[in-house]
Every structure is written in structure tokens, then in C-alpha cells.
């Protein structure tokens, strides 16, 4: 969906969807929040810029646990009614705890990390006339399959493939530096034969501009989106324990809400 909004209104949209995301996880009693908050702005940039048409282009969420961010974006883009959001991860809901194709607008079910980039490469190879965008997490790059896919995309010169890495520098048990250092992801992708663009992933307009550059490439493009883990909620930022939350207390919920509402 295209809103063609200028800077401030995209910012407002981000605030609104961040609130939706928080509400959804609070109401359902569970959710992967830290990474979803960092991935939200890059996903907003993908869906609310005029660059792509998802009736034809493809979006693959490889890090399936980040689905809260995708769900609020798809609800806003009217793929399904917004009041479904509170059913996230509940029995019988189409909004599974990890993203699934039961949700209108979702092309790939995921949850087991490292697989989405291969699927995206297959889509890009089979549908050369459109763009395939994949969103991976940085922790997901521990998986060897990511690098198998990176080699493959380079071999087949998949210039219509874009991999956005949500580089928030945290994974489930700690910082990526502690658990498995990513070191210089950009250098690795360059060595694998990709074009690499680095961007402040918290800034939607910058991500949109980067996507524009990425769209017309002769090589697969990796966008390293440097993001903030737990973005917008101070006590979650940089705290890996917020990988997922169960039964967020009302106090913390209200505090988080207030912070998002008051953010500049």
C-alpha cells in the first residue's frame, strides 16, 4: 500500500503502529517485542513507500518471530481487520506466534531461522520481473543456511533480491557480541558478491531512499539496517531479556505507552 506521505506523517504512522504493536502484545499476554520494535521502521519503509507493489513484488519475513511488526503493518494496509491484532498467538487465530500464510498478504510461513533468504532467492530466480525483499535478523546470521543462500544469490546474479538485515545487535540470550559476533556483516556480504548499503534503520525516510537505490542493481543487495533493539521503549532498549515478554505488567505497559506517545 502506498501512502506517499512526507517525513512527519511517516513518523506519526510509526508512532501509531508502535502503539498498536505494544497493545497487541500486552493484550495477547505474550510476544517477541525487542526485535519487532527494531524491525518495525524498516518494514514500514518497505510497505508504505511508493517503490513496491505487493500484488506483484514479494516480501519474505525470514525472522518469523518478528511478525508483530508485520501484523500491525498489514492491518494498517487493510489486509485484515485491525481488531484481529489482539488475538495474536491465541488459539484459533490466524495471527500465529510465528508468521504464517494464513494471514492475508503473507507469502511465506517462517519461524525456524535462516530459511527465508533461500526461499526469497527461489522467488527472485523464478520471478525475475519483480523484486523480492527479505527481512532477516542479525542473530539469524549464525545459521549456515544464510551463507549458502548468499553464495547462491551471487552465483545467479539475483539483482532483484534485497536482503534487509535488522541489525539490532541482540539475540535471544544476549548481545550478538557475546553469543556469536557478526563482526563486519557488510564486509562479509561484499566478499560473497553482494552490493551492500548501510543505513540508519530507525529512520524510515533513509530506509526508503536506500530501497530506491537497491531496486535497480545488477547484484543482490544487502541493506544493513542499523536499528535500536526495543526501539521507542527506554527500559526495553538494549536489554536482551525483552526478546519476548509474557504478561507485561500494567505499570510497565502504561509507562511504555506514555514513552511512545511523548516521543519526539
Amino acid at each position, binding site marked *: 500500500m502506498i501512502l506517499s506521505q512526507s517525513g512527519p506523517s511517516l513518523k506519526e504512522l510509526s508512532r501509531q503502529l508502535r502503539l498498536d504493536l505494544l497493545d497487541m502484545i500486552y493484550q495477547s499476554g505474550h510476544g517477541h517485542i525487542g526485535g519487532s520494535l527494531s524491525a518495525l521502521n524498516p518494514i514500514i519503509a518497505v510497505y508504505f513507500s511508493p517503490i513496491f507493489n505487493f500484488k506483484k513484488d514479494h516480501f519474505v519475513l525470514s525472522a518469523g518471530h518478528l511478525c508483530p511488526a508485520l501484523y500491525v503493518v498489514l492491518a494498517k494496509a487493510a489486509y485484515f481487520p485491525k481488531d484481529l491484532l489482539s488475538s495474536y498467538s491465541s488459539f484459533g487465530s490466524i495471527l500465529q506466534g510465528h508468521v504464517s500464510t494464513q494471514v492475508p498478504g503473507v507469502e511465506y510461513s517462517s519461524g525456524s531461522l535462516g*530459511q*527465508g533468504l*533461500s*526461499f526469497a532467492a*527461489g*522467488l527472485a530466480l523464478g520471478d525475475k520481473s519483480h523484486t523480492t525483499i527479505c527481512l532477516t535478523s542479525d542473530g539469524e546470521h549464525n545459521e549456515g*543456511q544464510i551463507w*549458502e543462500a548468499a*553464495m*547462491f544469490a551471487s552465483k545467479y546474479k539475483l539483482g532483484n533480491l534485497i536482503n534487509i538485515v535488522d541489525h539490532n545487535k541482540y539475540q535471544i540470550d544476549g548481545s550478538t557480541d557475546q553469543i556469536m559476533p557478526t563482526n563486519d556483516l557488510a564486509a562479509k556480504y561484499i566478499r560473497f558478491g553482494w552490493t551492500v548499503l548501510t543505513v540508519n534503520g530507525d529512520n524510515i525516510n533513509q530506509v526508503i531512499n536506500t530501497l530506491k537505490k537497491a531496486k535497480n542493481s545488477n547484484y543482490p543487495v544487502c541493506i544493513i539496517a542499523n536499528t535500536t533493539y526495543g526501539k521507542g521503549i527506554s527500559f526495553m532498549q538494549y536489554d536482551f531479556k525483552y526478546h519476548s515478554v509474557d504478561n507485561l505488567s500494567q505499570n510497565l505497559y502504561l509507562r511504555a505507552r506514555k514513552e511512545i506517545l511523548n516521543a519526539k
Partner: protein
Amino acid sequence: MPNKSLSIRQSFGDTLVKLARSNPQIYVVSADLKSSVKLSEFARKFPKRFIECGVAENNAAGVAAGLAHTGKTVFLASYSCFSPAINWATIKQSISYNHSNVKIIGSHSGLLSTALGSTHQMLEDIALMRSLPNMQVFSPADAYDTQKIITTIAASPLPAYVRLVRANTPLFTDPRTKFTIGIATILQQGKDITIIGHGPVLHQALTLQSSFSIEIINCPSIKPLDNETILKSVKKTGRLIVIEDHQKNGGLGEAIATMILESGLSPKFIHLAIDNRFGQSGHDPNQLYEHYGISSKNLLDAINKLSND
């Protein structure tokens, strides 16, 4: 019985070339074993539809799934000890769960990988694949079966696994009969004992010298299973032997035993399969069959045991 033998994997490669001539949507995703799984001709004739992933079976399964979602019918071909063994989790999520039109072809299954030894004698593939929702599982008995199965599944959008073997094996099914998914074939009618099996190992049942009247059923469609044919035969004979070149755990015998018990029947039953062991190298398949308890001698012993009870 014709004494001809033909390679099952060659039959796979030849059939796919034939199908691809008239169906431009047929693609192959390979993991560096095109010559071994007899796809060199496909690669030569249809280079744009032959996608080479190198020795990377997880990525190959994911690429196959993605390609399938652009409208292709994708054959993902390798050895079963690598695909579905290494990439099972990718098959589960990217192919099964995502309803991808991918046919997983696992060659070099069973003890028939002979000299290659235990790492390449895949004895667990049926267990792995039977357990997946949305997944059909087939095991052709010979080159005729292979041709029919590949042709049939190419016309369906559902995911499937097909188990192939390396060796040249006897032709013993009827090339004229039609293959139908979920249907087993009675190769020989009988009334005392039922023998059911899949793959080339079943051929031994046709060579037995026994005074008993034996019904022999070829069961290439392991999932879905032909409950009706199996139950009808077992009701008649009351005695059942299942033979397979696979682990007992998770094999066809287990599938049949569960189905029969649930139906309320309780025939006398012997499952001839590899019992919780790894394979090993050998040049003579019969020697391996004997060592692991799935030879014609084991079949005769099982027949005598069931008949004496």
C-alpha cells in the same frame, strides 16, 4: 518372471526429461549430484531449468520452495542421506508447512548403496518423511514403478518424497498397470500369508520356493497407504510379513501395524527390516540383506514361523 534389470535412478532421469519436453514448468534443483542421480541429460537439454546449488541441501530445499511459489513444479534431487536427512527442517517449514510444489527425490536409499557404507545407506528417510503433514511418500519397486510415480506426481501440486536406490534392480512389476496414489498392487494372489513390501527388496518374495499360498503386495504408496487392499488381504490370510530395506523404527511396517491394530484386526505379524543398526560396506547386496535380516532366507524363516503358530 522377466530376468531383466534396470536402474531406478536412470528411469527417474529419463522420465523427467520426457516430462520436461512437454511441460515447461518442470525445474530441477540440484545439490552437486546431477550425474549420480541421472540428471545430466536434463541439465544439457534444459540448462535454464536446471538450478545448481552446490553442496548445500538446506539452501537447495529453500530455493526449490521459492521457485515452486512462482508456479514451477520443482524436483529437488540428491541422495536421501543428504536430502531429506540434512535439510529436514527446511523441508518441514519451507516445503511442507508452506505447501510448496516440490518433489524431493532421495536417491541411494537403503542397503543397496552397498560399497559406500553406512553414511550413505539411508535407512531412516521414510521415518523422517512419513512424519511430516502435507507430505506424500513413495518408494518404487523397480524402473517401471519409478516412471509411473514420477509421471503421476509431476501432474499434482502437492509435495512428495520419492525414495530411489543406486543399484540396477530387477524389473518385476507390470508396466501396463496404472499407478494411483494411495493404491497398492497385488503382485501374486494367495490365501495363507500376506507379504507386503516396498522397493527392490520385495522382489525376493517372488522367488521363494514355498508350499504355502502367498499373497504378495507391492506398496509403493507408503503415504497415503492403501488401507483397503491391505486389510482385505490380511483378513483373508491372518498372517502378515512386511519386508523393507529401512529401519524398523518409522518404516512401512510400523505404519501398517498401526493401521491394522486400529482397524480391530490382529494378524500374526513379522516385520523384516533393519533393527536399530547402522549399515556397512559390502559389494553383494544379498550378503548385506542376509546380515541385516531382510534376505529371502529370512522371508522363508518368517513364513515357516507364522505357519507353525
